[in-house]
């Protein structure tokens, strides 16, 4: 394979599904006709009867590239993977894949509960396109990796879910292909496995093979991929380096305007009446939010170890057991702190409209920019569950500086909470170490 030849070429790929009765204004006869159109595809001609999961998608992937495909649910990621792995065929356009294709769209493909671990290893391996004798040759390695030697001849329905997943992963890890198509299922599992599979993917790419990795986990894409692509409504809206793609994705999907001119650098007050909501926001309760120092002066710059006041203006609070939550997210849209009004020990006297202040003492955040997600909802019921009713994913931003809380070496915004620590050398005495004194 010459290295300048793309290993994956996608040209004008489209996939449409027939969903004829989407318009609700149909008469009874119209509904019958719509049903008929679903059953007999040749009757269907109107473009409105189709849902386009992918529309005119074109891109190329070079050998050695690890392409991260980002997109929220329903953006067409999975459809793209299904087409490339041959599970379903495109409606228009084509894809050319140079090399042996291996795809992992689920954990434990073809596992049957009644069969033993041993039988399932072979079944799953052959389904993934391996030869029986290759599996036999690698069998010990697989069992070793999974760490369930003792149960290999037990039906997998008797496995714990952890054992099941380990065995499934072990089978998947021996998949060798020139083009590897991975769904984000592979990004779960325990930390050791994640590390191992990450190494595996990097090794594959170093060998000049190609990896397509679908995810909506920004962190996984940044750490694993070399290039990135964002899908939205079946179309590619961005293609570039993995880092840029992730930044663009977070801005688009999580409403993170990294454009600081738009989100005024010094803004401490944020009107939320028109802010984007998650889950459609059945209620409009959250009206505005402002951030302050402990003494009440507005600010959006804080030092680690300081206190942060969040004031939330709300209206129309007519439910029993309401809650408010301040969720702090890092630049990867990963939550680093969860602060709930239900954490407050005492009783809170809610009024129908008003302002609630949340005081977060002793911020333990590392240096960086954080987003504040505000959530409002109801808690209680038989299982004491919380149900979100109004959620603004990007209500405010705060900037944190370590500013001498600890020395600023060796900690990033996304490396966990900041703690003061004291370190001192102890005189080395072997006996003391053994006795623990």
């Amino acid at each position, binding site marked *: 394979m010459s290295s300048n030849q793309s290993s994956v070429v996608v040209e004008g790929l489209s996939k449409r599904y027939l969903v004829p009765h989407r318009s609700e204004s149909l008469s009874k006869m119209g509904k019958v006709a719509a049903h008929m159109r679903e059953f007999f595809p040749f009757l269907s001609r109107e473009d409105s009867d189709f849902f386009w999961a992918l529309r005119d998608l074109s891109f190329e992937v070079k050998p050695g590239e690890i392409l991260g495909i980002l997109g929220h649910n329903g953006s067409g990621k999975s459809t793209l993977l299904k087409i490339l*792995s041959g599970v379903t065929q*495109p409606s228009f356009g084509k894809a*050319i*894949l140079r090399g042996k294709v291996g795809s992992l769209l689920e954990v434990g493909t*073809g596992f049957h509960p*009644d069969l033993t671990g041993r039988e399932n290893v*072979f079944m799953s391996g052959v389904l*993934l396109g391996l030869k029986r004798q290759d599996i036999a040759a690698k069998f010990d390695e697989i069992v070793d990796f999974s760490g369930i030697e003792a149960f290999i001849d037990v039906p997998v329905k008797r496995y714990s879910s952890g054992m099941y997943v380990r065995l499934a992963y072990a089978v998947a890890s021996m998949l060798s292909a020139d083009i590897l198509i991975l769904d984000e299922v592979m990004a779960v599992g325990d930390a050791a496995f994640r590390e191992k599979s990450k190494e595996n993917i990097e090794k594959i790419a170093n060998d000049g093979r190609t990896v397509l990795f679908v995810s909506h986990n920004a962190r996984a894409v940044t750490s694993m991929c070399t290039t990135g692509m964002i899908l939205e409504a079946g179309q590619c809206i961005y293609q570039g380096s993995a880092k840029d793609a992730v930044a663009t994705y977070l801005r688009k999907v999580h409403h993170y305007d990294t454009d600081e001119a738009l989100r005024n650098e010094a803004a401490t007050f944020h009107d939320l009446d028109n802010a984007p909501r998650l889950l459609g926001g059945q209620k409009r309760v959250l009206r505005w939010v402002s951030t302050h120092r402990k003494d009440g002066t507005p600010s959006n710059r804080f030092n680690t170890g300081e206190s942060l006041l969040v004031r939330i203006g709300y209206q129309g609070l007519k439910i029993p057991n309401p809650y408010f939550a301040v969720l702090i997210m890092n630049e990867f849209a990963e939550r680093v702190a969860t602060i709930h009004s239900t954490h407050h020990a005492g009783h809170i006297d809610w009024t129908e409209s008003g302002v609630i202040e949340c005081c977060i003492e002793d911020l333990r955040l590392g240096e960086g920019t954080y987003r504040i997600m505000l959530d409002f909802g109801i808690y209680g019921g038989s299982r004491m569950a919380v149900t979100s009713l109004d959620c603004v994913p990007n209500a405010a931003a705060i900037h944190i500086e370590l500013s001498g809380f600890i020395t600023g070496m060796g900690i990033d915004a996304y490396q966990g909470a900041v703690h003061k620590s004291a370190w001192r050398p102890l005189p080395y005495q072997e006996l003391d170490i053994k006795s623990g004194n």
Partner: protein
Amino acid sequence: MTTEIRVIEKQQGLGFGLAEILKWRELLLMLAQRQISSRYRQMLLGFFWAALEPLGQLVMLTLVFGFLLKVDTGGYPYPLYAFAGLTAWWLFTRNLMSVAGSLQENMGLISKVYFPRLILPLAATIKELFDITVMVAMLLIVAAIYGYFPGLRTLLILPLLIFAAVISLGLGLWLASFMVRFRDIRPMLNLGLQAGMYATPIVYSASLVPERFQFAYQLNPMYWVVELSRWALLDKPVQITAPFYWSLVFSLLLLASGLLVFAATEKMAVDVQ
């Protein structure tokens, strides 16, 4: 090093899809094996049930048609007469249901991993052929009890059963993709199979059918499978007539068209599920 190049686009034109099966034969055998072993592992008495179900039906048929209605079999003991026909019909029914339902039942696999879909109905057929051996063994025992000992000619039952499997495979291939989309097919198929049983000389003698209907009656390929089975086992005379050749042609066309229809429609199955 030659690089394997795969072009993915909307399938155009027709094909039987048989070439790929060779490449995936390991999977075919493993799927068949899995279906067989998972069935017999689930039920401790797997073999027992495989035998008891048709035996139970045989007893009922014997009571109603042999004992109460005293159907004329031309001197052959009724249980054996019915059993010889029932075995092939049993295979036909089971295989048709399995093949027709093969896509629907394996939706989980189909939507997650690529392999030639034709493997699923083929694996189902292999499994049904395996299952029928229990019944054939019983048939031979019942025959021996009545004094009909298997000879060389009895071996003919084997190709006859395979032929029955092929017809039902062809018919099932026609239905498999549509079964995923139209749930109504299953009850219709049940009804059709019941009608088919009475349109084939299983519980009664073919000589009961009026002469003027005989030509149409004998176009049914299963008529020949049943009658030839009896000839092979009981030495019951059978006359080869023109409809025999027609039904043979019809069966081969059924299989060929079934393969074509399946290859053309299985792609849509994963999209509708």
